[in-house]
């Protein structure tokens, strides 16, 4: 087990280095010469040379990359050009907000995916099975921004049942746990639908296979109730659920760009949107780097968990 984990960790190192190189390149290769942009096209050559030296642009690209990598590894992601504040100081609080939203959405993904998948596996040809299949297709096809806009139109503007954005009410009982949950419900639903549909699909396939196998036959032959058979079979179908669940957790991180922007939640996605609008490259760079690193980390955790419950994976 330890060997397996170490091997996986070592494999993640080149991936993360590659990720950092791509992120660095997106800024280094951005069209337009920063020196000309700063000094104007008519500047004398000496002034251009001096500025290039001062901001380090006279050095070759690989050297600049290593320098940037060193700063990044020590937690220094540079200064945001739109707010003049350190990028790290802006990213960390936003990350907390995003993790809250992701956790809420993930709970919906698991609950809904298992429910929909089980319904589909129990009676694949009955109306419940067909309905669950159609529902998963609809969920998988639903873009987060479309769902977010539709939810706001129906639940916040038309029926005025739930808040349309923000994280808490400014007045009255604002800030309490219940109030924060009310503010989470719509954005979490918008973020959850696509992963929920994919999870339902995979769980349905895995559970159907187990239910059609010898284990289920044996359990039925011993006279177990339908519910008991389902419980045992669901246990055996759980590795597939774990793998797809982990992948979806990572996928949730990308949906937040749209969801947080539309629901005005101060998370990473919203920050990234604002940074893009302001063409604030260091902030974009830092945000993309954090999300991609989290993505790799989650995949690593999923592999580890998979190896822990299924010995066949380790070899």
């Amino acid at each position, binding site marked *: 087990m330890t060997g397996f984990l170490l091997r996986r960790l070592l494999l993640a190192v080149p991936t993360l280095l590659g990720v950092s190189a791509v992120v660095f390149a*997106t800024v280094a290769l951005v069209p337009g010469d920063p020196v000309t942009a700063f000094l104007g096209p008519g500047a004398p050559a000496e002034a251009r040379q001096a500025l290039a030296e001062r901001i380090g642009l006279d050095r070759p690209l690989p050297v600049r990359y290593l320098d940037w990598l060193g700063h990044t590894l020590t937690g220094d992601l540079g200064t945001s050009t739109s707010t003049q504040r350190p990028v790290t100081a802006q990213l960390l609080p936003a990350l907390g907000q995003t993790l809250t939203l992701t956790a809420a959405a993930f709970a919906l993904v698991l609950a809904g995916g298992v429910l929909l998948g089980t319904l589909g596996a129990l009676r694949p040809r009955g109306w419940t099975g067909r309905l669950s299949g159609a529902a998963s297709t609809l969920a998988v096809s639903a873009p987060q921004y479309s769902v977010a806009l539709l939810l706001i139109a129906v639940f916040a503007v038309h029926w005025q049942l739930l808040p349309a954005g923000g994280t808490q009410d400014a007045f009255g009982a604002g800030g309490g746990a219940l109030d924060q949950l009310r503010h989470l419900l719509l954005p979490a639903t918008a973020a959850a639908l696509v992963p929920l549909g994919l999870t339902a699909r995979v769980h349905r396939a895995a559970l159907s296979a187990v239910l059609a196998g010898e284990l289920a036959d044996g359990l039925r032959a011993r006279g177990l109730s339908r519910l008991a058979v389902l419980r045992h079979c669901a246990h055996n179908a759980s590795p597939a659920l774990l793998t797809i669940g982990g992948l979806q957790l990572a996928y949730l991180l990308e949906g937040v760009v749209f969801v947080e922007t539309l629901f005005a939640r101060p998370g990473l996605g919203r920050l990234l949107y604002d940074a893009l609008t302001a063409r604030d490259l260091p902030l974009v760079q830092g945000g993309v780097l954090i999300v991609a690193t989290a*993505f790799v980390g989650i995949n690593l955790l999923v592999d580890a968990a998979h190896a822990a419950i299924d010995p066949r994976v380790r070899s």
Partner: protein
Amino acid sequence: MTAQRLPDGIARTRARRIPAVALAAAGALLPVLLAVAAPLLAPADPSAGQLADRLLDPGSAGHLLGTDSQGRDLLSRLLWAARPSLTAGLLPVAVAGLAGALVGIAAGLGGRATEQALLRTLDVLYAFPGVLLAIAVATLLTPGLGSTVLALSVVLTPAVARVAFTETRRIRSAEFLEAARVSGATWPALVLRQVLPVVAPVVLVYATSLVGLAIVYAAGLSFLGLGVAPPAPEWGAMLDELRPALFTHPWLAAIPALVILAVSVLFNSLGETLRPRVGDGTEAAR
């Protein structure tokens, strides 16, 4: 090959599936036809607006789906927008299908060094959540249809390459390939005549299942201001344009969202009805 007698169940499912595929294909063709026929169908000029008629709700006289914040007819804009929006979804899938098949086959047939180099590069691209990679690539370019197509091609290629690689690996040491090698087939002939006929159908079906996703991503990039730029009509940009009206005219603002959702469902249904016909591609799905 002699005709095989299939077990009853399989024969029946296959026979039943053909109308389903035809139905799904017709469904996916509908938005394409609407896009092609936009000049004939659009009731008004998509970029000419009457400021007096701004933000009319759906169902208003003369404007079936209402008007946007500049008084332009929404139905006409949606129809014209189908052209760039569908192009931005279909073209990257075609590019990624070709590039991914090439990379996948090269990794599958090449030596250990080639295989590892290509697979590790794909891993790096895979490490980015799709939308973020698209954003990263699109920020490098001037916003427009071309940058969207390029960004999405980069995002989709690794997934296609994985599928092509798996399929090529499966047949790498098959007897028919060995036979072709022994009889002196050159590399291009080997790839074109032996490998491609096996890999192409799988890649084609997998690529079909990516079209819905690509359309959704493309509209998302325009929504973020990285795709087709206003005033040209495009679904994602229209979503962004109508967003300020969400609180005063919720149904009007919801229309572009519904259109993107519907088109995505149509293309995904086609991908899904095709998928069981060539093995189960779910392991590569994202």
